[in-house]
């Protein structure tokens, strides 16, 4: 399952870091962050609960870039 989330982040490198952090989160199969459109596309693993996974993704993103937001 694929879902798109709106995000807010200030710099392009931070967006890359968020992408990496999201990819490393359990339950995420693939993640892609576009700094230009301020969007995060997340593909979840089979059977993963997107809501719970996204909470983790947000936590991990905040860890690498304090100043970011994912609108769940």
């Amino acid at each position: 399952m694929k879902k798109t989330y709106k995000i807010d982040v200030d710099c392009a490198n931070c967006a890359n870091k968020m992408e990496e952090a999201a990819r490393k989160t359990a339950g995420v199969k693939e993640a892609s962050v576009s700094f230009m459109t301020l969007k995060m596309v997340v593909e979840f693993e089979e059977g993963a609960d997107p809501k719970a996974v996204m909470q983790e993704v947000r936590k991990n993103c905040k860890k690498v870039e304090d100043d970011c937001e994912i609108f769940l």
Partner: protein
Amino acid sequence: MNKKQKKMLIRIVVTFLLLVGLSMTPVTGYLRFGLYLIPYLVIGYDILKKAFKGIRNRQVFDENFLMAIATVGAIALGDYQEGTAVMLFYQIGELFQSYAVGKSRKNISDLMDIRPDYANVERDGVLEQVDPDEVEVGTLIVVQPGEKIPIDGMVVEGSSSLNTSALTGESLPREVTAGEEVISGCINMTGLLKIQTTKDFGESTVSKILDLVENSSSKKSKSENFISKFARYYTPAVCYGALALAILPPLVRLGILGLAPQWGEWTYRALTFLVISCPCALVISIPLSFFAGIGGASKAGVLVKGSNYLEALSQAGWVVFDKTGTMTQGVFEVKEVHHSTIETEKLLEYAALAECASSHPISKSLQKAYGKPVDRGRVTEIEEIGGNGVTARVDGVSVAAGSDRLMERLGIAFAPCHATGTVVHVAVDGAYAGHILISDMLKPNAKEAIRQLKKAGVKNTVMLTGDRREAAEQVAGELGIREVHSELLPADKVTKVEELLERKSGKEKLVFVGDGINDAPVLSRADIGIAMGALGSDAAIEAADIVLMDDDPLKIATAIRIARKCIRIVYENIYFAIGIKLICLVLGALGIANMWVAIFADVGVMVIAVLNAIRALFVKKLS
């Protein structure tokens, strides 16, 4: 400028004034340190805060951290002015970047400003504005002049001209009247239209296109992936380099050469390294170039589904076309009547009546050329002869109309046709009566399109068609296409494309262009599938990588040009930014470039790269 940016601008101005003021104030010692701390904190407090949080989260190679170390280090060495100035310029660079990115985001979303905000629905005789999402299929909506058509549908009442330029890049308005299909996203220019919707908003053209454009940047190109990887290694590498620069040379001087270690000098050089270690220019300018390139393309009516496709398109070496509907209009017309033993009109009348039961484009073109309503009552005993033609009785006279093979089968001597096109022989009462030549029309821009493709550096053009060899070769000859494969079934087209994929050399990419109706398998097999005239055709929008909004073949060359320009800009930025940074690193290590040079290099490269990236937005129109 948004609120955040305005606040930053004020901080920058205040810091600048304070710095100028302080440089003219003759103070020394702790007072000087204390005074310089004011502008430093004004401009850098958020960076310091972020750096601190970064350390807590174990994100050491974060540009905030690097900037903090470099500036704190400079201040510790007594270079108060430099430390503050580096922070100031860094923030100026960040502000510029945020402004430029915001601006191009807005520019590009304005380009694709086709999202309708509301639909007018008549309820109890009053017009009400409702959310297009809530309009059910079959609802009657009213579109006033100046408004966008919110949902695909059929005109029930009224006539008007539509501006389709936001969708197709085509400036010529389209006339519509009652009974015609209209697509969402067009702007109604002159008259009031009442439209019965045929789709939900979510299924309408405008939603599909917006969806496609908004998701285009999630498919990243190789260059973008390269840059994110590069950034991941570059920053740590420079940091370790800085550490080595601060420690090793003094130790060598002290231990081996027996000289004074000059700790301060080497630490200063190491801090210069840290200033250059930020990969900002690259990380921002590459995605920005692709974003601008895709934006510029959509303005020209070329929708690109991802920056990876734009990158692949720039390497197009082979362009393979479908003939009918792509290079030709797909509309058959009776061109000539040859060897007619009876009056031309009479011959057409017989042919049209005999073929009256068929809905094939050929029969339709016969009926159109006949020009009068077909009275089916005059026709009896219609018999289709296995794809070769028909026999029938018209006004009691036996008529046969069809191909060479039909005539052979009926044992009627016929005059073969030397012209190209589809030939319909007609025999009346068992005797040959002549033949009708029917052919497809080339699109007006087809020839120019091939010429422009060659000019854009496409080496090979190939045409594939299910049509007869003569017809295919004639079209190819007219267009200047050397390689033609004709009489192909849809499945053969896939095999042919596979053969061509084998023949092309390594880096070249093969583009297939089709009108999208039954080309889906070929579109997905080619390196890049381009569907044209795809407005309203969902299957084509799904299967293709690039969608041309109108059916002008000239847009293929436009798309390739856009792709080439965009990739050129991307490479310019990569070489320029990495080159300048490497030069500065070397000069910094040798002690030639000081922190001023480093920060100017960093911010300057970023500004130039961003401005260069925005250039990808501008598309030169091919005439």
